[in-house]
């Protein structure tokens, strides 16, 4: 088995990871806005 055979080649996975990151960022900020909405200060 040549070395290349074993090499990871996964551009799709990389894009999926970016989508996941984006999704996380969106949900994360939505939570803080929801908190702000539910527990207004002042």
């Amino acid at each position, binding site marked *: 088995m040549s070395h290349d055979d074993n090499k990871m080649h*996964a551009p799709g996975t990389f894009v999926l990871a970016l989508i996941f990151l984006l999704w*996380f960022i969106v949900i994360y900020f939505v939570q803080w806005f929801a908190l702000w909405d539910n527990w207004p200060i002042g």
Partner: protein
Amino acid sequence: MKDYSHQFRTCETTGLKIHLPAQKLIWVNAVSAVVFLLVGAVMAILIALTRWPAVHLLPQHLFYRFITAHGMNMLVFWIVFFEMAGLIFGASAVLKTRFPAIKFAWFNWILMIIGALLVNYAIFVQGVDVMFTAYPPLKGTPLYYLGIILFAVGALFYSFQFFFAVGIAKKEGWHQGTLPLFTFGMLVAAIIAVFTLLEGAVTFVPTFLWSVGIIPESWMLDSTALYRMHFWAFGHSAQQINLAAMVAIWYLLGTLTVGAKPVNQKLSRIAFLLYIIAINLGSIHHLLVDPGLTSTYKIVNTTYLAFAAVIGSLIHAISIPAAIETAQRKKGLTNGLFEWLTKGPWSDPGWSGMIISFVIFGFIGGVTGILMSTEQLNVLHHNNLRVPGHFHATVVGGTALAFMAVAYYIIPLVLQRKLISKTLAKIQPYIFGLGILMVIMGMTFAGLMGVPRRHWNIELPGIFGGADAMLAIMGVGAIIAFIGLLIFIGIAVLSVFFGEKIPSKMEVHNPPFPVKEGVSDRKTATT
């Protein structure tokens, strides 16, 4: 050494050497798991239909009793029995080795089954309504706690037996070198299990003594905060076991469905090890509004320390799809970014179950879990329906579905029975996935509107009107998910008992790396 060479059969598909006494043990643990899944499923549909205001099925007292039965039968008995089957499989067939101490293993199963039956007896006959967490002053009967203790002892013994079996595989020369990744993952699960079950003893032995009157009421009432902390040192670590087992199964399914090989084994192993380091870190997310703990303690535990486990999961989240993508691309599915995924074997329930479980676990369960562990954000949903919304994404859409997906392989390959209906198996992960997704969404959004968890009737306060639609989505989803579970249970049980037998060759199998005569064990271990 005794001669075990005639106790093996060779699996024609995988080439695995299966030790027949181990196969029986896998059978009995897997079948037990599915039986308790059925009890848990019936409870699930009943409580879900009660929480759907338009139906509001059960009377008040039965609602709390059945929530208790649902939590225990699902999260403890179904999941843990299945994991025991996984431990035995990982320490025998995967290593092509014999499983030692067969009688002890049967004894452990008996302990666990008696424990599980006692708990169900206590709930259904004696009327224990303490719910999954059993926080004092809620008090069960002695048999309830005794049942949990017996079950936990059996599982603890199985974990020790797993270590012993791996040791025997090396010592007797059945297996050499590093452990295969699946077995390694199960080893991590077993190590976490030891910690978890010891914490379980710290939690349930005192409550047992309280229930029989040895520990006075006043002591227990003074120690409720301590109970809650120990309960979650046990309860959350138990979820780390489920996590490690599920991830190990994802790797296995990647291999079984499309021949994926981990692209960087070392990194995957490090990611598993992070689960051990993070064994109990993060468990305080259950106590973020608990007045007994300081903010500093909560924040350090649930953010900085818990991230060790999160990083582990993120590594797996890349390495599993990357392995699958690499394998698929090698087969020529190279068009665009996602042909490897879109042209996957979608009619193989092992594949569809794995992918759906991966997506529900990662995109919903994982993300919501991290957010809920943030102290400030936690007040948004503490004890409301978003909490079950979150954990039905992790332990149900994630773990339970992954277990079902791998069962479609275990039944033919290990238990030697053809599935009685391939067509039903094909659609089952989609039905269950859709249903549980609706349950998750319904719970999550109802929770966002403030609907509390574990409440029989939310009409009384009259302030959750807008949530009715969400609870209806949850109710309809529950019906669909329930059908999905029934299909799985039907296929599993009928196949195991009545499915066509798959013949297999009995083949003499000896340790391929025999221990040389006259060489001491220690020396072989180091050479």
